[in-house]
């Protein structure tokens, strides 16, 4: 905030100080629509409640680009998207509506795979190969980090598979939770151990 170079807001103008939340919500929604129409909404996002907490869903024109747990700090995630994709970012539920609907169905147990366009631009090289492989692990199945490493043609890269999973920009939708330790224990997870257990339990009930 800029400091005023003389007296404060005269009391006379006080009636204008109230924030008109209703009007601002309407204007925000109109802005998102106009931006979409003009092709300048580079990243649209929304935050949806799920059994594993608030999930941030962000999409480019190409598809869903980021799913983030609250533990990842949504503000930091948006700042990173501004740097990596574009700062033209608005909360605009419309573009992520279909993804949100499918995630709701997934948590309700009525959906076993996701059918939405994905934008993998945040992952490159080996990590991208790992994510491509993960998408092929079926609902209710698990693989070990070592199995994934072998599957992507680099059996020695078990740790790198672990970090590719930890850096997965699209958790839940790209099922890094289906990768577990060779001894059968769950192992780490970008959304935390509790979230991983919730997802694996949900899928094993099917």
């Amino acid at each position, binding site marked *: *905030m*800029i*400091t*005023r*170079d*003389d007296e404060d*807001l*005269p*009391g*006379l*103008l006080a*009636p*204008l*100080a*109230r*924030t*008109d939340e209703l*009007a*601002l919500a*309407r*204007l*925000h929604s*109109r*802005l998102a629509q*106009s*931006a979409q129409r*003009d092709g*300048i*909404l580079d*990243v649209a*996002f929304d935050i949806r409640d799920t059994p594993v907490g608030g999930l941030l869903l962000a999409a480019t024109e190409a598809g869903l680009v980021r799913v983030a747990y609250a533990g990842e700090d949504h503000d930091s995630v*948006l*700042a990173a*998207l*501004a*740097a990596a994709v*574009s*700062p*033209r*970012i*608005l*909360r605009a539920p419309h573009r992520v509506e279909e993804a949100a609907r499918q995630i709701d169905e997934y948590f309700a147990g009525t959906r076993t795979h996701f059918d939405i366009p994905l934008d993998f631009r945040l992952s490159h090289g080996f990590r991208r190969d790992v994510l491509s492989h993960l998408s092929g692990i079926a609902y209710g199945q698990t693989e070990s980090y070592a199995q994934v490493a072998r599957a992507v043609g680099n059996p020695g890269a078990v740790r790198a598979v672990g970090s590719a999973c930890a850096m997965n920009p699209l958790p839940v939708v790209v099922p890094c939770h289906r990768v577990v330790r060779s001894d059968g224990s769950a192992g780490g997870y970008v959304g935390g151990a509790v979230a991983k257990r919730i997802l694996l339990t949900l899928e094993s009930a099917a």
Partner: protein
Amino acid sequence: MNPPFEHIVGRHGPAVLRVCRAVVGADDADDAWSDTFLAALSAYPTLDVGANVEAWLVTIAHRKAIDILRARSRRPITVDVLPEPVMSTVESEAERVDLERAIAALPDKQRQTIAYHYLIGLPYAEVAQILGGSADAARKAASEGINALRVTLGDPSPRTDRPPAQAQQQRQVQQQRQGQQR
């Protein structure tokens, strides 16, 4: 790196709306706000990191408001520009409507200087950069505007029963004058 534009809207949206309402009136404020933020979003990737975002937004809002005021001066005014205060049940709401009406009756320069200095907090030097002229001239216009508002609104005790005709007429006369000047 500039923060996500969503933060810009959240942080500055309310003040820019106050500015738009003061400069173009409540009826056109939504259009002015929308035009401003859409243009800002479009240009946002090229905004220098560390730039004064408020001054940047006000500069855009100022241009958009001028477009709206020009378009309005060309079209005949057949309806009230401002909402009727009789519908206001809450006293503070009536007070606000009275104030908006009084601001609407001020000359452009006074409305703009009051909005840019008092409602969003730009120093007079920056107000002057946007409006042209000197910082002292901006300060003088704002001060004259505030004095005019004091006269129009009288004592702090709010009046909710004042007929809307007076401010309305003033506004029309002023707009006709502007139209003739162009």
